[in-house]
């Protein structure tokens, strides 16, 4: 029996075992819920009073205290009341007053906090994933996930017979392959791969993948005992994008390297290393930092943990290091997550802590460590 038949069997079995509860429902006895109740309530079935959690109130309260203390402190320290808030990340306009740098730093800390909340897509009342960034990275990774297993298959010793070798119709590539690809929807389409084998012994190739209207350049090397590296490039008249994945079998880690180049300017250059128990941002550079990713793994009890999205954008920041950690803890009300980020600005030794409580239906606890270094 093939997989398709098995899936059909599962479908039929579920369709046949769906119970009929319609007879048990009497429409005339169901009262409408009051119109004043927020429909979003049904996103969670917790009783309404529980949604106004003390943690949230405490968070808002602490935010208010930070703002008030910051304002009072600035008022007492600054010789003038002119607030240098035009550009929250710019510290170049250092005043001659000794107190000024510290005041700047405090303003910076508060503003960074607010900025960080906005960039994370967090409103003070609840956690909202940053959708535009999410979709951007997803569209890249979706394609990426499709190609990696196929390339892996092509490079591995057990090459499947479903790949058809045909004569290359491009002068710049020696080989042409037609690879049937099963889409997630179940439909099949052909992916065309043009290849040059540059080193047959260690299986180094470079090539071009064509699927629908998308073209990806890639190169890959495959060493069974150590590292597998795939690099994908997408170029157009505006931008170059590059995604690189390295799987290191020795350290059991996977490294993602995402690089976006506009002309000769690197817009985004980030390296994320994922091991079994932690994720590290190894490198983030340049004027626009925009990283979001998700991490999922399964623990012994088969529960799935996930960071849905963490996304950071610090416009105009060039060279200050950010170190942070992200921690989940279980509680009776669900799961509470904390993001703490320490921001050091030049030589000012400012350390700012940002606490964000995230309640999500996940079970258990886990600590993520993020190091963002220049």
């Amino acid at each position, binding site marked *: 029996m093939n997989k398709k038949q*098995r899936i059909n069997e*599962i479908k039929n079995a*579920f*369709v046949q075992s769906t119970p009929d509860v319609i007879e048990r429902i009497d429409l005339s006895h169901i009262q*409408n819920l009051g119109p004043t109740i927020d429909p979003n309530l049904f996103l969670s079935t917790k009783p309404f009073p529980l949604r106004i959690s003390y943690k949230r109130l405490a968070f808002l309260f602490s935010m208010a205290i930070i703002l008030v203390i910051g304002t009072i402190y600035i008022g007492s320290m600054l010789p003038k009341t002119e607030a240098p808030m035009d550009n929250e990340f710019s510290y170049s306009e250092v005043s001659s007053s000794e107190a000024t740098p510290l005041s700047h730093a405090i303003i910076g800390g508060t503003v960074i906090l607010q900025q960080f909340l906005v960039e994370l897509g967090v409103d003070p009342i609840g956690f909202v994933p940053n959708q535009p960034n999410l979709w951007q990275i997803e569209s890249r990774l*979706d394609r990426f996930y499709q190609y990696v297993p196929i390339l892996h298959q092509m490079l591995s010793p057990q090459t499947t017979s479903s790949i058809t070798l045909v004569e290359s119709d491009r002068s710049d590539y020696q080989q042409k392959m037609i690879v049937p690809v099963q889409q997630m929807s179940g439909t099949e389409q052909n992916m065309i791969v043009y290849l040059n084998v540059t080193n047959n012994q260690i299986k180094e190739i470079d090539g071009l993948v064509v699927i629908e209207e998308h073209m990806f350049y890639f190169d890959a090397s495959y060493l069974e005992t150590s590292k597998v590296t795939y690099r994908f490039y997408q170029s157009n008249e505006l931008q170059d994008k590059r995604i690189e994945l390295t799987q290191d079998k020795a350290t059991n880690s996977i490294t993602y390297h995402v690089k976006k180049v506009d002309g000769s300017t690197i817009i985004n250059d980030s390296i994320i290393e994922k091991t079994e128990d932690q994720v590290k941002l190894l490198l983030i550079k340049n004027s626009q930092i925009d990283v979001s990713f*998700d991490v999922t793994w*399964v623990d012994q009890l088969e529960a799935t943990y996930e960071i849905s999205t963490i996304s950071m954008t610090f416009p105009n920041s060039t060279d200050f290091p950010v170190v942070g950690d992200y921690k989940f803890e279980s509680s009776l009300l669900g799961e509470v997550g904390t993001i703490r980020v320490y921001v050091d600005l030049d030589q000012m030794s400012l350390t700012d802590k940002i606490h964000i409580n995230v309640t999500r239906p996940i079970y258990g606890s886990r600590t993520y460590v993020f190091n963002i270094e220049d």
Partner: protein
Amino acid sequence: MARLEEFIEGLILKDEESFEQIYNETKHSVYALIVSIVKNKADAEDIMQDTYIKMIASIHMYQPKYPFKNWILTIAKNLAIDFLRKKQFTTIIGLEDFEYIVPSKDISPQLALEINEQLNKMTDIERQIFLLHVVDDLKHKEIAAILNKPLGTILWHYQKALKKVK
């Protein structure tokens, strides 16, 4: 297939036929999602009933800009998770295998056993995604919206679930 949204006005007026249409169009995915979360047919049946009651009671608050099926499945998911949470405080949930399909006149004991074995190999999230896609042909984007997870995660888990189907 008629669009479910066409029957909502009827359901607000407590029209039985409209409800029947909505029920028949959604019952398989509602049941599949619930049973994949609570892992028990009897509990799933009760939660399925609660889902429809809650849906009817709050139908006037449904916002047509969102797909109706996503909405009802979100209600089903939240009720099922809520049920599990309550159950955690009253029952020790073991690691034994669960029965998603029970033998009946249409389903042989052997087939039920095989399906349960394969579904038990999947993680919770893999099972939910797999069943929503397979039983009701929901698109991965729709599943992402219902389960409130990124599309990439959904695709990834679906791939992993597929590998466990033999």
